[in-house]
């Protein structure tokens, strides 16, 4: 037992001595949280657009002013003829051109209809859609007073209620996924590299002749990262609640239990990868490809799973993070508990047991 404790302490010391790595292991989650909280968005804010006003009368000028006044759009160029449209769009400085036809006001008064054309840069489809929507809404909202009453009560009025995230903040959606990603980085990647390093530098042999049993070695290697992971989760949670106001509506205990489960699965994955590789470099690449990338891409962290092709949706079922995310989002944002989440929890338990078994068995095998 004493040798074991000594081993664990040595591992901890190793990590603590590596100031740079430590900095990153703590700094990375915080930086990622900041980025996802403040930077990564799908909304539209002061998008640069241009106008080509063939009429230049009161009506068009009013509409243009309204477009500029809205927080979503910003009129940065006033074009003077059609030939300027293509170069402006190609240069990428504006995302849309709003074209008003000639004699706009006159046409409205005489024949009741005047035309506006929108040309949008659809390179990024959703943004293009949003810009179009905003432009459309603003243009249509221009109504001479006498008709406003008539047109507003026609048809169906939807009453939309947004549950769990009424302000539609991106950060609510990203924080759970971020936790999963950070855990993967720390647990899977660091563990696999750490064990591989022992193998590479040959100190593994030394460990094996010591009175330490194989599972002692595994646990010893893994313990520091377990501790690190838990500290990181708490940090991220605290930050996201205080700085970003992300709610935590469910049971903290349930969350910690499930998270520890997930950490185990990640650690097991790390151990397993280390058994398959000979040196650090391959371990790093393998764990990057095998754990981090699937976690980031297929788990529903950023890209919604229902939007993916069926084959990928099926594949995502194999990624532990996917199930973890369902649980965390449920607990944090929807306030649900084991009653609604029993299935994902069961699956996660199964996966963890399987991975731990695979990791330990392989480790023992490889040593022979």
């Amino acid at each position: 037992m004493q040798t074991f404790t000594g081993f664990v302490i040595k591992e901890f010391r190793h990590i603590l001595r590596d100031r740079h790595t430590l900095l990153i292991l703590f700094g990375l989650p915080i930086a990622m949280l900041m980025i996802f909280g403040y930077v990564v968005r799908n909304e539209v804010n002061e998008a640069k657009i241009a106008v080509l006003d063939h009429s230049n009368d009161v009506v068009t000028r009013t509409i243009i002013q309204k477009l500029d006044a809205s927080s979503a759009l910003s009129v940065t160029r006033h074009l003077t003829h059609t030939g300027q449209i293509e170069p402006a769009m190609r240069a990428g400085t504006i995302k849309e051109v709003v074209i008003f036809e000639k004699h706009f006001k006159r046409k409205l008064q005489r024949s009741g209809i005047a035309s506006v054309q929108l040309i949008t840069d659809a390179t990024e489809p959703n943004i293009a859609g949003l810009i179009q929507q905003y432009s459309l809404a603003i243009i249509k909202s221009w109504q001479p007073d006498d008709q406003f009453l008539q047109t507003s009560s026609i048809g169906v009025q939807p009453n939309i209620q947004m549950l769990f995230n009424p302000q539609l903040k991106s950060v609510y959606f990203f924080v759970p996924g971020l936790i999963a990603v950070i855990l993967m980085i720390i647990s899977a990647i660091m563990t696999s590299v750490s064990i591989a390093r022992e193998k590479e530098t040959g100190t593994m042999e030394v460990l094996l002749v010591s009175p330490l049993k194989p599972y002692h070695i595994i646990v010893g290697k893994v313990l520091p990262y377990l501790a690190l992971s838990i500290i990181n989760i708490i940090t991220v949670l605290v930050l996201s609640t205080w700085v970003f106001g992300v709610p935590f509506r469910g049971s903290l205990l349930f969350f910690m239990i499930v998270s520890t489960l997930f950490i185990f699965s990640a650690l097991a994955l790390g151990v397993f990868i280390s058994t398959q590789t000979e040196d650090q470099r391959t371990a790093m690449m393998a764990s990057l490809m095998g754990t981090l990338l699937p976690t980031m891409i297929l788990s529903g962290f950023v890209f919604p799973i229902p939007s993916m092709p069926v084959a990928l949706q099926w594949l995502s079922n194999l990624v532990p993070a996917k199930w973890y995310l369902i649980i965390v989002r449920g607990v944090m944002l929807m306030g649900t508990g084991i009653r609604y989440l029993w299935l994902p929890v069961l699956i996660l338990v199964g996966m963890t047991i399987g991975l731990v078994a695979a990791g330990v068995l392989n480790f023992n095998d490889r040593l022979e």
Partner: protein
Amino acid sequence: MQIFRDRGMLVVIFVMPLIELVVLAYAATFELQDTPFHLVDYDQSAVSRQLVRDFEATGYFTLVGRSFDIEEGINQILSNEAKMVMVIPPNFSEALHSPQQANVQIIINAVNNSTAGLIKGYSYAILRQFSRGVLMKAQRALPTGQLQRIKVTSRNWYNQTLDYTNYMVPGIIVLLTTLICLILSVLNIVREEELGTIEQLNVTPIKRYQFIAGKLIPTWIIAMTVFSFSLAVAYFWFGVPFRGNILLLYLTTVVYLLVIQGIGLIVSTRANTQQQAMLINFFLIMVFIMMGGIFTPIVSMPEWAQTVAHANPITYFAEITRMILLKGSGWVDIDWMLGVLGLMAAVLVPFAILTYRKRTV
């Protein structure tokens, strides 16, 4: 040559990017596909049934449950079976044909804010369409004399079909090329240091810059190969258009890779172990990628982030790639961006070489 000797790495370098490219390209979309919803229809009229059919007919919405209790619907949301609950009030059909307003309540699970926004947008559009249909059938007399309507038509340039792949795939190519280049160049130096072979090389008559060039060039070649390969996949498999000048794109890539290698070199001269190098490297990549407009557009970012993005080489490379491929932009449009990249390369690479000198001395 050493790189080629390592079979494992070879597989990783060529096969992995391909797999990642394909998987990521297919997964990376924010389009709305299947929205399961729960229906609470208190009206049960022909017209309310028509509304539901209209929603389903778009292909974006699928009915997964119906009841007379809103709580049931919320339950389905909580268990992730449904994303939305539609509640039609009891007097719906009467309200439609009277001057009163007809209401429909739509409750959306907004955990995924971007999906929720899309659901809201689509719902609005469907309801607008539905309203128009009902009105035309009922033939309400509108005082057309006084009604002034603005007709808006819209055109989507560069991406007629609003296909997300056209946006994502160039970004993914940039991502992959950058990753490979950075990882390889960082590992190069650090590995030598760790294995002690640096000492050996220091004794040879090879000059410093020759040494570094010797490290840079294979990495550079491999990165260019990966880049070309990905482009081919993008064009033949994904049908991403190639509207601009390929040579211009390659010129940009050449300069860009130098920038990345410069960064990689600087990182490796600072790091003590391979693990550290990789970690720092990874950290940098994450930050640069998130802030470089690869997955989410720069226009959506807050002002300060957009300013920072100007210092990010990935921003320029991603933008140039998209512009050349999708818009057919030419020299005139990108010259200033290329200039910035060139400046970065001119500053970073010599800096890397000079700081390296300090380490070995």
